[in-house]
């Protein structure tokens, strides 16, 4: 039956992977149906894990279903910036010890799982909305809350509604200074904040083959900002090569059928995109970097799970090299994982950052969630590569947040206002 499902011309990625996993592949599940999915991985982090632990204990469950499949990640506020956070971290460490589950501290969960655990065809439930990042390598990966995470810990399963799908064909080639982040910012600007709510996004088209795994991870991660359940790049040569180099094997390679039904279809010609900026705040329109005036930036934050990968830091290094951050603007660079951090230190990128006057921190969600290492004060203005520009996201509710690619952010840090990166490349 599994082979029949894999070869079915009429099913979307979501329908196929849910059908393969639920009920052991004995039944085809179409969009709109409810299915119960066994989890291959379950992840909670330090701002959702403590509540999940509390709920798990309140349920009166003694043992988790499979300790090897459960990951706790201390990443949102690492290391603990204050006593309250430190105490919740202690709660996590005690639970980890008691249940024998996995713990990582100091790498952002999504990047940590991508580098070390998740493979194509897996089902990953994460108590973090940006869990959908792992769709970049063809996994079913979606965000849930703490109580449902406790239920997954207890039973290894969770209900899902099979989502409808939206297909976007990516064609053409980037102009200089335009990156994966500009695609997804443009897309969200086009469909709106709930344009992908409950849906599975499938990224297709001739330009996909030129997107690295890091670029795909950026798009799948940031797809959450239109509300999606999944954001999928099917396995291709790039994915296969990536898993060969890191020596991990796919569970399944799932490809949507050529006659699958899509609720909506979009096309984006990468050659038409300019560097994109969204802000201030989520109520503003997405515009090109060149359309902004010279309003002063108090902070530029480069990093987070959306854009803190090595590929991102390389571009930033290229732009900052030999230049100084504008006086009066602080530039904070935060890698997505310990691995990215170490690479940047060993190969000299860290030196470039420090010489430019930037602050280079350990891996953490940090400034993105306004918890430490770059919190915004009253009426401050920030350009960030993190996923969200919500009111109060990074600190004061009066602070203004703009979002862009790392290249645009780096160029803007040098000029002290939003700037087009192309003159530095």
């Amino acid at each position, binding site marked *: 039956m599994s082979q029949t499902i894999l070869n079915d011309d009429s099913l979307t990625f979501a329908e196929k992977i849910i059908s393969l996993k639920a009920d052991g592949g004995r039944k085809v599940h179409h969009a709109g149906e409810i299915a*119960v999915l066994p989890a291959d991985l379950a992840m909670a982090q330090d701002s959702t894990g403590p509540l999940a632990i509390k709920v798990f204990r309140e349920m009166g469950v003694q043992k988790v279903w499979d300790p090897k499949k459960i990951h706790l990640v201390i990443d949102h506020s690492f290391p603990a910036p204050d006593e309250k956070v430190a105490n919740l971290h202690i709660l996590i460490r005690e639970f980890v010890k008691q249940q024998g589950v996995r713990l990582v501290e100091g790498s952002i969960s999504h990047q940590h799982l991508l580098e070390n655990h998740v493979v194509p065809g897996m089902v990953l439930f994460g108590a973090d909305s940006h869990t959908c990042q792992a769709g970049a390598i063809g996994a079913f990966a979606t965000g849930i809350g703490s109580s449902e995470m406790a239920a997954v810990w207890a039973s290894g399963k969770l209900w899902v509604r099979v989502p409808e799908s939206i297909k976007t064909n990516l064609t053409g080639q980037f102009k200089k200074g335009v990156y994966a982040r500009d695609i997804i910012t443009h897309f969200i600007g086009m469909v709106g904040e*709930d344009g992908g709510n409950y849906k599975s996004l499938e990224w297709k088209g001739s330009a996909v083959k030129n997107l690295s795994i890091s670029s795909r991870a950026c798009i799948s991660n940031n797809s959450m900002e239109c509300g999606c359940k999944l954001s999928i790049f099917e396995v291709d040569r790039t994915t296969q090569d990536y898993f060969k180099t890191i020596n991990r094997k796919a569970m399944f390679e799932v490809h949507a059928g050529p006659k699958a039904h899509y609720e909506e279809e979009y096309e984006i010609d990468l050659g038409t995109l300019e560097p994109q900026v969204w802000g201030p705040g989520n109520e503003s329109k997405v515009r090109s970097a060149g359309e902004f005036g010279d309003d002063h930036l108090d902070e530029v934050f480069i990093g987070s799970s959306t854009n803190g990968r090595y590929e991102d830091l390389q571009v930033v290094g290229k732009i900052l090299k030999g230049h100084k951050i504008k006086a009066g603007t602080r530039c904070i660079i935060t890698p997505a994982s310990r691995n990215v951090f170490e690479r940047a230190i060993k190969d000299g990128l860290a030196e470039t950052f420090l010489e430019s006057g930037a602050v280079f921190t350990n891996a953490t969600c940090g400034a993105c969630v306004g918890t430490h290492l770059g919190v915004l004060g009253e009426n401050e203005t920030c350009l960030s590569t993190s996923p969200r520009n919500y009111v109060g996201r990074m600190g004061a509710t009066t602070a203004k947040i703009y979002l862009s690619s790392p290249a645009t952010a780096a160029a803007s840090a040098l000029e002290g206002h939003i700037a087009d990166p192309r003159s530095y490349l």
Partner: protein
Amino acid sequence: MSLSPPSTIIRGRTWVWPDDVNTDIIIPFRFKARTNDPVEMAKYAMYGFDPEFYKKVKPGDLFVAGRNFGGGSSREQAPVAIKYSGIAAVVAESFARIFYRNSFAIGLPALEVPGIAKQVNQWDELEVNLQDWTVKKVNDGMIFHALPVPDFLRGLMREGGLVEYYKKHRTFPWENMRALTGTT
């Protein structure tokens, strides 16, 4: 501390909110990530709109909101803060996916009623019926039918969420596949 399961018929005055009320407005990260106590979380409910909201809300009040209520983060602390602030039910034109799931998981009644935000004014009295899944405007008797949800989720909601359900049944509502037949 846990709250008792919701009543079948909930009547209360309404707070009206706009479209796209996200989870950072409902409870900012810096507060929600520093406590595991729902009563403490409730002090920051709707902080992004009004840091004093928790002082103004009355137990049994209701929310009516526009589209995409609860967008953004997976933080269950958002519906928890709303529930423990005293809000008895949230009615929205649409909910963001994770917030909606979380509401059922914690037993906060959440009903999806397209178009309702334009029909209701701040402080209007509403009656939310969890049995027939409707919302009634008390002053003119106007009745709105909420979009249907699977029976097992409505059952979960009426029993007060996953903790209460599991304590009673020692299983989760979706583990019995027969419970899924006849769902919408």
